[in-house]
């Protein structure tokens, strides 16, 4: 593993503004001792995130708008190439999924925590990331029984 100058693992924390980000920030004790940076979707949350670490806003996108997805993808590529994280941690949604894949391509480990909003099934983004995730957590015990390689240890909310 290539570590940053201060010999610490660098962690990319990524989540869409709103509920996904609320959930991610509840877990902050998990990465306290590491160097972190954030990737999120709206300027509205950037001010708050900058208190915790460098923050990149890449804009909102979902699968209904392909052009937006491509634009956001390009921005994410730029961020990941510059930052070179050792680990990507995400609670979703689409942007989290994109960043997890990009990180993985560059050798990062991937931690996915599927949003508590998903009760019956794992989210679409989550189902895609499950193939590459090194740790995959869900927030309802029933979901851990439904899928393989998925763990339930608790709920963020």
């Amino acid at each position, binding site marked *: 593993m290539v570590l940053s100058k201060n010999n610490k693992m660098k962690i990319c924390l990524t989540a869409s*503004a709103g509920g996904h980000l609320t959930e991610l920030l509840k877990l902050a004790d998990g990465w306290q001792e590491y160097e972190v940076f954030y990737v999120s979707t709206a300027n509205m949350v950037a001010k708050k995130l900058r208190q915790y670490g460098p923050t990149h806003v890449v804009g909102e996108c979902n699968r209904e708008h392909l052009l937006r997805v491509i634009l956001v993808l390009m921005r994410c590529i730029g961020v990941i190439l510059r930052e070179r994280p050792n680990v990507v941690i995400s609670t979703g949604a689409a942007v989290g999924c994109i960043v997890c894949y990009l990180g993985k391509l560059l050798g990062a480990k991937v931690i996915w925590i599927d949003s508590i909003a998903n009760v019956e099934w794992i989210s679409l983004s989550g189902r895609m990331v499950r193939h590459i995730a090194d740790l995959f957590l869900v927030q309802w015990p029933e979901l851990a029984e439904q899928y393989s390689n998925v763990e339930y240890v*608790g709920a963020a909310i």
Partner: protein
Amino acid sequence: MIFLTVGTQFPFDRLVRAVDNIFDQDLIDEEVFAQIGETSYKPRNFESVASLEKKVFDERFKRASSVISHAGVGTITMALKNHKPLLVMPRMKRYKEHVNDHQVATAKKFEELGHILAVYDVKELPDGIRKLKNFIPLKRKASPDAIADRIRRFLNSLQD
């Protein structure tokens, strides 16, 4: 004051319009304040804004006697934290309010656990608002520490 909020990603006019119409029927005897997103719909019966700064949003939320919203995790989290009676109506894919119908399952789950009230159609909204007045949400025992701990153990294992 009842705080009506629909999140910030997309508008949710079906809910805003329904609350506005219920006002006409004199079923709401309280002031309503709404955050409704970027939309052309303008409520006749209460004050509304497209979006609020986080700090102002939190302030309004805390001041509200109860909250009406979509079934978004952000709002549900805030209601649980502030112990506010919350009534949700899930966004539906068929009205192009979201990419899928997962909010229905979210609403049902949190409703089942006694944390929130939920309605699944505008027709049920008047009844929901009536119940909201006396609704006392059950407190939730979350376990973010357990997840944080699992993440910490995983990260430590990478450095061995």
